């Protein structure tokens, strides 16, 4: 029951479950589907293809909230928006790890950073039209970027706050101009951003769905259930959050970049809402739907693996479970106590509780493997320590952990683990409690509703000592794991929105991260991230637990399974005939 049976609302919070992929060959090796032929998109045209046409039928247990691409922060609609809307930049639509790369979309090229990353200069493509027939102009671009602040996009501050004039916009959204920060020239179709400080990841942020370009006359409020005109190969025919969405081809679409936005194969996409996950699994197995959005219930995995092997696709995600420990209150204000937890954590048991080795794997560092700057060794396992890391996780070291707890002088203290009350997380929480008990604490577990837990553990006034939560990258960068979760600027005591849950702030780590964020040379940036990662690993403000995989289930009639790291199945690229 709990989260599993009920539509798990994929809202707000951490569930931008997108961002997938581990090393390319590893991901491919796990894929059960036969190696497809049409991996690269080619010229992006589908006209004349024998596979063009038909209706793709999708299902989800519930709708994903507002249709405003600049506000919605769910993976459910990010996946849909990627075939509907375009930004200046986009992530490549490719069924391999190059889908992590930023490519030009409505802009003609990905610009080189100027002023050491303070100025970004774009030229808008000519001849792209909205689904209303209107031409996309630089005025639309400027209005869309301003609209991020005017409608209060969730990432307005965290992603786009470095644009000159953004502070004024955040303070007074209604009069946002971004004067001095955003210049456009209709004659040359130039769009220039000026940042108050260098940001090497600005291209990724502009490729994120929130920076989609909408017509300039969009209202300054949440669009709710009214769809905006699109630029991609499909557009809305109808939308009802209780029933579903119907999409048809956008008659004004033409392929301008096969990498960013190829044409679609199917003529129509029907996305129905309301079918619970258990029923959806049966419906896809029986071919009533082509694809389901929700997590596949654990008890159906055996059946899927045995009877529908060819319809199941396993890919790794840039998603992790981790155990943040509050560094500001006892007992985890003691570094030895935190290291003890890291040492005692049985990542094999956690993998089993999540569903076994096919869907998860032990995780030793806070940045999952495959992201530049990830550490590839393990400091907390049997026979290893931060100075002599082992090449991989070997097993839990309870003895060493007990010694550390004894040395820390915190043994016998009361510790409460706060977890979500979904089946999987509860079982992991109970395991954590037993582990804490075994290394010398008086431990208990406190389950909270999944809607509340994430906000609750962030708020310092709730005095949470240790908790379990998950985290997914918005785009593949170490900053999404290190700076977001351990950056001093993300610690806001007394609020529900303080994603640095551990309350960790280290001068040296912060300096390395700040330098890395501004470093436009990727190799150098990766080094800096690794440096910050080592400091954080030694301080151990959180214990990484497992990295997780994405399990996809499609109908037997679906061809050309096409998966990108960030948006999973690409609806425009699969065949139903």
């Amino acid at each position, binding site marked *: *029951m*709990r989260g*599993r*049976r009920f539509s798990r609302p994929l809202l707000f919070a951490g569930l931008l479950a997108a961002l997938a992929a581990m090393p390319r060959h590893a991901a491919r090796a796990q894929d*059960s589907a036969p190696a497809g032929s049409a991996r690269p998109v080619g010229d992006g045209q589908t006209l004349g293809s024998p596979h063009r046409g038909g209706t793709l039928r999708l299902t989800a247990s519930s709708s994903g909230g507002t249709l405003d691409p600049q506000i919605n922060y769910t993976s459910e609609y990010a996946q849909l928006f990627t075939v509907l809307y375009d930004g200046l930049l986009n992530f490549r639509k490719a069924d391999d790890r190059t889908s992590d790369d930023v490519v030009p979309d409505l802009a003609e090229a990905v610009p080189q950073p100027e002023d050491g990353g303070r100025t970004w200069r774009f030229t808008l493509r000519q001849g792209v039209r909205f689904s209303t027939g209107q031409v996309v102009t630089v005025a639309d671009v400027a209005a869309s970027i301003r609209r991020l602040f005017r409608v209060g996009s969730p990432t307005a501050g965290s992603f786009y706050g470095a644009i000159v004039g953004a502070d004024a916009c955040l303070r007074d959204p209604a009069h946002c101009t971004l004067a001095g920060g955003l210049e456009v020239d209709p004659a040359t179709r130039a769009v220039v951003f000026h940042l108050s400080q260098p940001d090497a990841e600005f291209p990724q942020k502009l490729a994120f769905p929130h920076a989609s370009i909408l017509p300039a006359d969009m209202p300054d409020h949440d669009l709710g259930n009214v769809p905006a005109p699109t630029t991609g190969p499909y557009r809305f025919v109808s939308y009802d959050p209780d029933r579903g969405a119907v999409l048809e081809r956008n008659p004004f679409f033409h392929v301008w970049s096969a990498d960013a936005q190829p044409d679609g194969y199917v003529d129509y996409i029907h996305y129905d809402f309301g079918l619970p996950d258990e029923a959806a699994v049966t419906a896809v197995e029986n071919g009533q739907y082509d694809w389901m959005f929700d997590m596949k*219930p*654990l*008890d*159906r*995995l*055996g*059946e*899927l*693996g*045995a009877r529908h*092997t060819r319809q*199941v696709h*396993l890919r790794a995600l840039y998603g992790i479970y981790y155990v943040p420990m509050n560094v500001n209150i006892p007992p985890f204000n003691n570094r030895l106590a935190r290291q003890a937890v890291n040492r005692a954590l*049985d990542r*094999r*048991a956690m993998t*089993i*509780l999540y*569903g*076994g*080795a*096919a*869907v998860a794997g032990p995780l030793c560092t806070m940045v999952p493997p495959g992201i530049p700057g990830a550490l590839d060794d393990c400091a907390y396992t049997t026979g290893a320590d931060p100075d002599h890391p082992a090449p991989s996780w070997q097993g839990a070291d309870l003895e060493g952990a007990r010694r550390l707890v004894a040395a820390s002088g915190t043994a016998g203290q009361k510790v409460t683990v706060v977890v979500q*009350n979904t*089946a999987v997380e*509860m*079982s992991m*929480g*109970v*395991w954590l*409690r*037993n582990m804490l008990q075994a290394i010398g604490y008086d431990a*208990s*577990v*406190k*389950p*909270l*509703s999944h809607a*509340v837990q994430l906000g609750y553990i962030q708020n310092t006034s709730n005095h949470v000592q240790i908790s379990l939560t998950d985290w997914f990258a918005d785009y593949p960068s170490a900053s999404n794991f290190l700076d977001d979760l351990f950056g001093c600027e993300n610690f806001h005591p007394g609020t529900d929105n303080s994603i640095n849950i551990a309350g960790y702030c280290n001068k040296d780590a912060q300096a390395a991260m700040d330098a890395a964020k501004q470093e436009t040379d990727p190799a150098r940036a990766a080094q800096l991230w690794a440096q910050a990662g080592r400091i954080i690993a030694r301080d151990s403000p959180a214990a990484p637990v497992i990295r997780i995989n994405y*399990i996809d289930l499609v109908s037997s009639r679906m061809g050309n399974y096409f998966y990108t790291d960030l948006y999973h199945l690409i609806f425009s690229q699969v065949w139903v005939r």
Partner: protein
Amino acid sequence: MTAQTVTAAPSSPSASRPPGPWRRAGRRLARDRASMAALAVLLAVTAACLLAPFYARDVAHTDPFTSNVAGSVTIDGRSVDIMQPNDNPLHLGLSPIGPTWHASADLLGADSQGRDLAARLLYGGRTSLLISFCAAALCIVLAAMVGIVAGYVGGVVDAVLSRIMDIMWAVPVYLFAISLSIVTVSQGLKLGPVTIASDNLLIPICIIALVYVPYAARPVRGRVMTLRRAEFVTAARALGVPDYRIVLRDILPNVTGTLVVLAPLMMALAMMAESALSFLSIGVQAPGASWGTIIEDGEGLIYTRPMVAIAPGLAIVVVVLALNVLGDGMRDALDVRDSGRERA
């Protein structure tokens, strides 16, 4: 609520001295074979559940409250992993070990956290029986107080109490219990200086007792209202006997029959409610066990290891059935005509 018709005024307390109706009722009950069988079943189940620590420690050698997913057990000299990977090409998912039918190791198999099902079943029974017994007792005490005050004092007090009951009545009983549980389960309960932790069994006990108060209070109130107009009460009041004495000496003994008959039925209802709340994960909290939480654990394994859900469910059916049979027998023996609704 049902038609409350009282045809004959009950005999006055002076007539109920030994060998009074209680002893006669006891004899009648003892002659009822169904009731005696039910009583025997209840006693046997209670005894078995009380022996849970003995079974876990000395027979199964396991701690039913510790996850054991990475462990293994020895069966016929062979070591077997408790969590076994599913046998499919993708190695998707794992299943816990099924029933081994060896008392020394996972007699009925393990649950999704590798814990011995049989041991948890016994511990869970202790919790379920404790909660349902306490909740029924508390509910009956509260209902008696509410029913007697409303029925005897009448007037404004009755109106206020009845309106409060109406509010409680207006929400389906399970929804009411669920709402209260969701609020308390995350935070525990703070009543002035007293704080009850969220995993304290008092929380489900109080909630279940509370939501059933209107059901038990109605028949009591109706009975008290008739009693108040009965001759011996009118006579006592005319003589100037203080109200509290009338309530204690004349009213209470005459509603005791109603209350006693309610007891097993309320306990049956409480057990059903407890299992439903725990099934929705808002009753007994992990790592504790009750029959409801075990059914919930088993839900995710229903197709692969159905035993995990079936065994505790059967236990509930057996105990609730026994309680209902006993309640029936007591009603016949005490000859109480209406004692509220059986409902769930």
